């Protein structure tokens, strides 16, 4: 190789790496262009939690598309209840474990997992199986049981919720994933991705006393959007939610819905849930209110939805 050829190619690579877009990356590595085909929502059905996550992420450009080397990652599952995984009250531990593993694999410097539990937090962390899965995958469980872990945040686009205290780890991270579980819910009708945001704030009582639905929709205006909402619908609770009384409240749907759009993923989840228990999307009022807050769309037909059966 001549010296000037060397400089030329070095310059090209340098410029290319400066742009560093995914499209350019895939051109260089000889793969197909990924920009236009990237779906807005991926729905997977029929697999195990970890496999479905890997499959869905593949459609979205892989975990490396969201997590870069050295970044601090937060994962926010639903760990609200002191219940075992079979009862479907918390996010599936295998799903969380796999996500931690993928983030670590993508070079994340730290993967933090927390939830502001409704019951004895230590028991919730332990009996949900999430603590074990997270620690095994190299992640870190962080407490959320005390007000001192929360910092005041403004919600300028909120209607009823103008400010709230949010967990500090979420404010300090580079990327976060919202990983709820799909369930029936006595108060909010259904709990999915936006309802899961009540676990990032300290004072939930405010939500309940200032129009629950409006506050949930307002919470979705939180300035730091999750990279993805990963809705676990492997086991769902169809009745007596959000805790459930026994396994007869649980239905195994073996599904996973993934989207960066809160409203779209919650809409899709309600439609999936409706096949088990008919639910009017209008009754889950926070979905419409969130659309009014311009945090997403209910119109799945306008989106690029990828449906995968395993």
């Amino acid at each position, binding site marked *: 190789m001549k010296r000037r050829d060397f400089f030329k190619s070095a310059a090209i690579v340098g410029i290319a790496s400066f742009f560093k877009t995914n499209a350019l990356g895939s051109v260089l590595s000889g793969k197909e262009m990924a920009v236009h085909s990237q779906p807005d929502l991926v*729905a997977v*059905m029929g697999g195990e939690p970890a496999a479905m996550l890997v499959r869905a992420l593949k459609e979205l450009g892989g975990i490396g598309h969201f997590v870069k080397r050295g970044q601090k990652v937060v994962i926010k599952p639903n760990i609200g209840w*002191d219940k075992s995984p079979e009862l479907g009250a918390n996010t599936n531990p295998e799903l969380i474990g796999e996500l931690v593993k993928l983030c670590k694999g993508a070079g994340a410097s*730290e993967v933090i997992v927390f939830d502001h539990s*409704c*019951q*004895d937090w*230590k*028991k919730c962390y332990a009996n949900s199986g999430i603590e074990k899965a997270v620690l095994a995958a190299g992640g*870190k*469980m*962080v*407490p959320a*049981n*005390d007000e*001192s*872990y929360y910092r005041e945040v403004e919600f300028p686009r909120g209607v009823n919720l103008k400010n709230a205290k949010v967990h*500090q780890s979420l404010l*300090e991270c580079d990327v976060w994933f919202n990983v709820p579980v799909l369930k029936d*819910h*006595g*108060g*909010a009708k259904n709990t999915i991705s936006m309802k899961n945001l009540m676990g990032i704030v300290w004072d*939930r*009582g*405010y*939500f*309940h*006393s200032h*129009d*629950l*639905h409006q506050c949930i929709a307002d919470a979705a205006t939180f300035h730091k959007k999750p990279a993805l909402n990963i809705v676990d619908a492997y086991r769902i609770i*169809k*009745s*007596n*939610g*959000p*805790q459930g*009384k*026994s396994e*007869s*409240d649980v*239905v195994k*749907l073996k*599904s996973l819905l993934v989207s960066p759009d809160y409203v779209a993923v919650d*809409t*899709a989840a309600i*439609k*999936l*849930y*409706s*096949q*088990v*228990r008919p639910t*009017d999307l*209008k*009754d889950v*009022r926070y979905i419409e209110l969130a659309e009014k807050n311009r945090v997403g769309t209910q119109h799945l037909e306008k989106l690029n*939805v990828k*449906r995968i059966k395993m």
Partner: protein
Amino acid sequence: MKFLKHIRIVLSVIFFLPIFVFFIDFTGKLPLPVHKLLSIQWIPALLSLNVLIIGILLLLSLFFGRIYCSTICPLGVLQDVLTWKSRFFRKKKKKIRYDYTAPKNILRYSILALTLIVFIFGSSFLVVILDPYSIFGRMASQLFRPLVIWGNNALAYVLSAKGIYTFYKVEQVAFVPLAFIISILFFILITQMSWFKGRSYCNTICPVGTSLGLLSRISVFHISISESACTHCGACEKQCKSQCIDSETMKVDDSRCVTCFNCLSACKKGGISYNFRYKKEQVQPVQQKVNNSRRTFLLSSGAALASIAFANTNKIIGKKDPILSRKPVMPPGASTIEHFNDHCTACQLCVTKCPMQVLKPAAFQYGISGIMQPHLSFSTHIFCTYECTICSSVCPTGALQPLVTEEKKLIQIGTAQFRKDKCVVFTKEEDCGACSEHCPTQAVHMIPYKNGLTIPEVTKDLCVGCGACESICPVRPYQAIYVEGSTKQGIARKPSESKKFNKKINDFGF
């Protein structure tokens, strides 16, 4: 015979440390069976009628004297620790030197008689206040434990700012002014007495110490001074923290001796020893107590009657909101309020072990005789965990009968009272459902209201009174749903299972 003192010290450490650490452990990491050490305390054993333990303690006292006071009783050992530590605050760091004092018979026998009479008349008020183990428990839970938690929280605060979450913050929930004041008063009294007068608390106020003193008068082994070897140097007397050795007359007051064996190490001549009482046919000196007891009895009876009248004024006059005058919620396993009030010594062990910190010492909820006995006090996120049985399993006095999880899940410690006119669904016509969301049995469930809204409804026979609904109800200060305590804990109906969904879903539905 110096080894006896060393054995005593080793034994007291073996008994004291686990109990102390168990009381201040707020992480729940210490294994629960440690509480078995607590069932060998005198009052808990008596109240739970643990025949085996009572027998063992009785034999120990009859053989060795007041060995309970010097090794097993945590309050006794605490006083030794305080006396020992007080050395560092004295001039020249010298050991305290004691002198013989006459026994305060009228005082100590009156207190004992009063406690017994009040108890027989049906109020455990004085037992609760004066049981040495429970006094220790209250000091540990109200004074020492909060300090440890503060330390932990300070550490957690500093470290969590740096992203280290090894320590987590713990809320100081169990703090109750009345219990704190009583604990600190006893702490001051006992510290002051042990600081200057060794075991004078045990020998003047403590009813357990006084009654064991009656036994130790006739114990098989006792401390005695050999008339031939004694030079009246007074070395033993100076070491006697019970102030019961009179070196001039060479007499040891057995009723006050706590068998600490400090005197044995002090005597250079071997003039004082721990030996068999009945080797010579000694005639026991006529006990002075006989003279005292009648007047003591008369004195104390009067006082007892007064205090019974005082203790039974437990009616709280109704205030504005019914939530303020509700019946107290007893911990699960208490069965009836009479059983509970009579057997609980307010040692605070269940309060310190409750992982949700929902148990708190009562103020006057149970009336005056139930001061500091635990009750459930619900506040945001603080309620009784459905599957948890820790309080009933650690209770040393039998006030709470042990429950297995399946029993506990059906024990009705109270019932939820729903007040529709306060509920946000009614007042604001907005969805809420927080109460039903937290209800483990779905006794509180949502029924259609209007405009697609749902409103709570309570099925009383399903309700176990855990208070999850009350703890989370956003209506404050007086919640729209609250738990009224049961005076007799019943059994709830087992929640029925919902209909299973068996159809296979193969479609996304969108």
